[in-house]
């Protein structure tokens, strides 16, 4: 049913439809509205026997989910940024134990400096923890991906994180088609665990594994991700059959037919990028875009197939590897190994800075003319940067960088040092 609702609300409704049995929640911006809505639904008795546990930290949140999933319950939690880092040990543990937990990440920057706004540094930090990682472009896709996530997680016995941009998606009101219970029940069967703590059939889970077997165990986890490359499109196709719309999958190309330049990105920025692509196409440029939905497993072959005939690739990223540049671009290069087209990196939107059509257009035009620096930091204020560099060169005790810059741009009282 079509509704005009906040993104978080829609995700909560989607989770509720998936018949979760244990939800554990620790609040952190930007995920709070999701867990708040779920607590209301549980209290109203709309989720049957679902247990909602308010925990004392994110580490506890995922640990509760681990225990619940190990005991055979469909478990869910959500977090962002600092919270995801605080549960890092448990994130790896859940993947290593093969527990089909689904977790929402309301993508948010990681401090210091503390920042509550959107970028992808959080999910990128955990990209190799063994979880499958989806990125939603719209709130509709966020709803759909969560439903697909439970099915995928339980099919392969691997945890799945569904990433949606904090504030930009979580706090935006837009039109969403909330599926019916019948549709979700038709798509998502009850949870049948591969391994479960059951007094009538005891097993030991979480044993120590030494050099004699660790590599094989890890290889099998890698193998699951390779399997997922086939299962994800399968499940997306089944989703389309049941729900009547295309959603998810590994990648989604946009106007890539005959495109000389293709933009690659994850998440909500694709919306703005598509508008720019349309404008550039109207101006005669053959431009296209590719959305990476599944960042893990990384869709190496699917991406190559779409990009291999492009003359130029531009990767727009909301994350930064200090000293290196982009993170996504590294994998894109791997996908395109052996090919020689120029591949550009644009670092944009860090800490929630707005990514505008105008700035993207300027950058894409510069890339097309081979005039884009690499990596290119979109809308970076070079003057502010240079003034701070001068300050640090001048004095040893130049003060905290963040505060100096905030004073500089007038957000903090007092003169710059």
């Amino acid at each position, binding site marked *: 049913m079509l509704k005009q609702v906040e993104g978080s609300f829609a995700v909560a409704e989607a989770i509720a439809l998936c018949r979760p*049995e*244990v939800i*554990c929640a620790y609040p952190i911006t930007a995920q709070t509205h999701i867990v708040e809505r779920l607590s209301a639904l549980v209290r109203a008795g709309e989720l049957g*026997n*679902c*247990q909602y*546990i*308010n*925990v*004392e*930290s994110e*580490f*506890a*949140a995922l*640990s*509760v*989910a*681990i*225990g*619940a*999933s*190990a*005991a*055979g*319950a469909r*478990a869910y939690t959500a977090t962002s940024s600092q919270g995801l880092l605080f549960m890092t*040990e*448990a994130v790896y*543990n859940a993947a290593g*134990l093969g527990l089909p937990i689904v977790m929402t990440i309301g993508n948010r920057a990681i401090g210091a400096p503390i920042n509550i706004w959107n970028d992808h540094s959080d999910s990128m930090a955990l990209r190799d923890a063994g979880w499958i990682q989806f990125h939603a472009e719209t709130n509709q896709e966020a709803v759909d991906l969560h439903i697909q996530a439970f099915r995928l997680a339980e099919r392969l016995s691997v945890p799945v994180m569904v990433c949606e941009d904090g504030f930009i998606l979580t706090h935006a009101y837009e039109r969403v088609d909330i599926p019916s219970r019948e549709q979700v029940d038709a798509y998502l069967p009850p949870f049948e665990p591969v391994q479960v*703590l*059951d*007094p009538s*059939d*005891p*097993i*030991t*889970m*979480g*044993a*120590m*594994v*030494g050099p*004699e*077997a660790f590599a094989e165990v890890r290889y099998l986890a890698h193998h699951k991700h390779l399997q997922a490359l086939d299962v994800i499109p399968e499940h997306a196709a089944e989703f389309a059959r049941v729900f009547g719309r295309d959603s998810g999958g590994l990648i989604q190309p946009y106007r890539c037919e005959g495109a000389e330049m293709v933009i690659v990105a994850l998440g909500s920025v694709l919306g703005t990028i598509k508008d720019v692509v349309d404008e550039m196409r109207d101006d005669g440029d053959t431009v296209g875009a590719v959305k990476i939905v599944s960042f893990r497993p990384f869709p190496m072959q699917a991406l190559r197939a779409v990009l291999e005939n492009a003359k130029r690739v531009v990767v727009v990223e909301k994350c930064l590897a200090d000293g290196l540049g982009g993170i996504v671009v590294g994998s894109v290069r791997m996908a395109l190994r052996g090919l020689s087209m120029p591949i550009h990196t644009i670092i944009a939107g860090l800490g929630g800075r707005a990514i505008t059509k105008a700035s993207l257009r300027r950058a894409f035009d510069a890339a097309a003319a081979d005039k884009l620096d690499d990596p290119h930091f979109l809308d970076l204020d070079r003057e502010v940067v240079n003034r701070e560099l001068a300050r640090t060169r001048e004095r040893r005790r130049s003060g905290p960088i963040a505060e100096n810059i905030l004073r500089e741009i007038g957000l903090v009282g007092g003169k710059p040092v």
Partner: protein
Amino acid sequence: MTQRIKFYQTGTFTIGNRLLDAEKRTVQATLDRSNSLTSGHRACQGCGEALGARSVVDAAMRAANNRLIAVNATGCLEVFSTPYPESSWQLPWVHSLFGNAPAVATGVMAALRAKGRDDVRVLAQGGDGGTVDIGFGCLSGMFERNDDVLYVCYDNEAYMNTGVQRSSRTPPAARTATTPAVGDPAGNVFGQGKNPALIAMAHGIPYVATASVADLHDLEAKVMTAMAVHGARYIHVHVPCPLGWGAQPRDTIRLARLAVETGLFPLFAAEHGEVIDTTPIRDKRPVAEYLEPQRRFAHLFRPERNDEALASIQRIADRNIEKFGLLG
């Protein structure tokens, strides 16, 4: 007038058991016990934790009609009981991380509740490091929510599995790898200490108890009492570690008993934050008798006796005796 007679026993076949009525015998004395921590594990000779865990889990299994799920923190117990590809556990058992056993246990409990399986109980286990240090936040959270989990801490007073490093439960003056017996003060500092049983009581949870492998009857009885109620429950078990303490494996029970008899490890039980039972000291011993057989306290005796440190430790014991009324 009934007289409480305690028979000190170390296992199934000692005389004490055979003189008791059947229903008063320990679970360990019965042939049909679940033997949930079965033989073949890799614990050291004389390991107090293995003895304690065996008693605890079998008692809990008896109380739960063999429908029990165990959640274990990282530590000696977890490591010596699951040397891949073997496992000593004959009940459903999960090990996740070092600091999250209480939270994982909460998750298991929640899953059982969601599925309407109120016949299955949950037991969480960890050492002093995993429980009182790194797992403390999760433990407190579990207490605060009154989650239906029995948490048992096996306290050997240091991070033994990683090589005997100091924990918040390491007693004053004890030598560990990170509190060496050099300088002044030598060994662990005389700090505030951290008493998880008292902290558990401060949470007001339904049942809290301390126990020792010196008195397995008492330990089992406390587990049975705990399992007879629901909500968050905590039992803190003193378990000597011969290797870490520098003691003889054969002295494990004797040392555990001395810890109780000196007053350094009071035995008591509490409900909803109020002490309801204490075990009186039968034969009070001076702390030096307990400390001297342990090489971790050797520097208090050789080359010279450190009377000041010994007096300070004696004061701790005496304070406990007074606080809990252990001398009747």
